[in-house]
């Protein structure tokens, strides 16, 4: 089943075009990672998928219906957003921050009730941070904040999580923790779309990787197939040797460094299917 379907999508701010010809579909229960240099259009793509930025051209279907047909409230119950860990302006308690994720489930003039509080606490428990419930969000460390924001997105009870650099500015242990939680959530049926600047994270966590550069998709496929020194070199504007020297991926390089092969086609449904079956095993 497809939860997000992007066809020939053109994105940008008003007249300023950032991305072009984006065709991508995200299946239920898979982790897709957007990989690419700064300014390649990753964040713009996330914003467009979240309905925060209208697409300039092309079609974007969410759960089979065009994005424009969704109300903000309906969309918030289907897609949860995890921004980068940030500082707060006001000292909300952790439990109240997570409770805010319930907003799409309460009426316009309503406020969350005991049932919503139970959901919020359950989301905290799922991420193993229930002991933080009574703490001041402003006093948390970066890693704790990131987990709280993930819990807040889970409280929306979404089918898809959109995460903007979920491991940025976290220490080594917290990076591992967040990535483990992402895999755990995927195993319980959630789809995840995330961006990262660390190819290892994409390789370890994603079922499929989208290589993006200058607003276009260079390649799309399973990390094992697509993350070669050659393609990563092209992605980041580095030589294959530099990539091979600096990056240790958790699978053997499928091809010799000197043999550049063609990139898999961005839209290959059969290929996608295989990838997902592989990752489930």
């Amino acid at each position: 089943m497809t939860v997000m379907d992007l066809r020939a999508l053109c994105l940008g701010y008003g007249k300023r075009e950032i991305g072009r010809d984006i065709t991508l579909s995200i299946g239920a229960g898979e982790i897709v990672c957007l990989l690419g240099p700064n300014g390649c259009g990753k964040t713009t793509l996330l914003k467009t998928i979240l309905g925060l930025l209208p697409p300039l051209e092309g079609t974007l279907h969410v759960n089979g219906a065009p994005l424009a047909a969704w109300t903000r409230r309906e969309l918030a119950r289907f897609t949860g957003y995890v921004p980068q860990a940030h500082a707060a302006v006001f000292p909300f308690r952790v439990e109240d921050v997570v409770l805010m994720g319930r907003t799409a489930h309460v009426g316009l003039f309503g406020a969350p009730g005991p049932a919503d509080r139970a959901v919020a606490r359950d989301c905290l428990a799922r991420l193993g941070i229930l002991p933080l419930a009574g703490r001041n969000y402003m006093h948390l460390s970066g890693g704790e904040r990131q987990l709280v924001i993930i819990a807040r997105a889970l409280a929306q009870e979404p089918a898809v999580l959109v995460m903007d650099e979920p491991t940025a500015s976290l220490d080594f242990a917290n990076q591992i923790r967040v990535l483990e939680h992402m895999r755990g959530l995927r195993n319980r049926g959630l789809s995840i779309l995330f961006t990262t600047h660390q190819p290892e994270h994409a390789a370890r966590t994603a079922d499929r990787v989208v290589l993006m550069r200058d607003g276009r998709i260079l390649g799309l496929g399973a990390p094992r197939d697509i993350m070669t020194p050659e393609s990563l070199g092209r992605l980041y504007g580095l030589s294959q040797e530099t990539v091979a020297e600096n990056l240790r991926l958790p699978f053997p390089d499928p091809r010799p460094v000197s043999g550049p092969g063609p990139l898999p086609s961005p839209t290959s449904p059969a290929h996608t299917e295989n990838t997902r079956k592989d990752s489930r095993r």
Partner: protein
Amino acid sequence: MSNRSRILLLLGLLILASLVSLLVGQHDISPATIVRSMGRSLADLGVDMSSGDDVVLWKIRLPRILAAVVVGAALSVAGTAYQGMFRNPLVSPDILGVSAGAGLGAVLAIYLDFSVRVTQLFAFSGGLLAVTLVCAVAWCARTRSLILALVLSGVAVGSLFASGISLIKILSDPHSQLSSITFWLLGGLNTIGADDVLGALPWITLALAPLVLLRWRMNLLSFEDDEARAMGVDVTRTRIAFIVAATLMTSAVVAISGVIGWVGLVVPHMARFLTGPDFRILLPVSMLSGALFLVVTDTAARTVAPVEIPLGILTAFIGVPFFLVLLVRGGDRR
């Protein structure tokens, strides 16, 4: 302490402060006189306006305490709402130029020798006009951040209106008009009658409704707009509703009391210090704290010195040190 008991405590303190305020002043009234007079009024025997005590009690002190409660509560709620929706704890209700607009309206009316009623109307409309202007400019300039555009155009329009006020001050008659202009700009409750308060109440109630109804959504506005949108909130419409409500409330109050500074900035901090930032509980707590703050300050204004001290001066004298103590000691618990 639970939130309920905090609210009850504040309510108790407010009643206590109001009772003390009834007793003290240039004309001393004994508690027994008050009980007797209230008893007569409750028994519907009519108030004896020939007695000096009754006149002071019913015509002067009670309306003034009522005004302090209403003005304090309204300014504090407006300040709390502005701070929440601008994601900035240093914002006061003046941020969008309400005070400057109301001030220019009132000063213009005084300059043109209009009546007190018309002056109030001018102040009310001036406040609304200034904020409308600021919002219109910000809406046209919303390239990236609506908040930044609002704050910048608020500063610009506010200082333009302030220059207008200065100009009229220079043109006005220094013997009659200038003193009433100065007094109006300092703000005070000494000229407010019960009918002024009753005239402002419908507007304040009307403005309070959206704040109460959307109380939960206010909390979400303290995150980035994109985050709040992704959680299902129509950020722009919600923020407009809050701006309209808070502006209407401030204008209605400034029209009858003049510009009373510091209440809308200090009291929200006090309230947040007491209960945390959840707007659902912050709303009643800031109303009660604001009412209490102004009843105490206004009582001090008319009792501590042989002549009455303008309220705006006293709110600054009490509010600023209090604010600084919170700033230093409260850390980020504010």
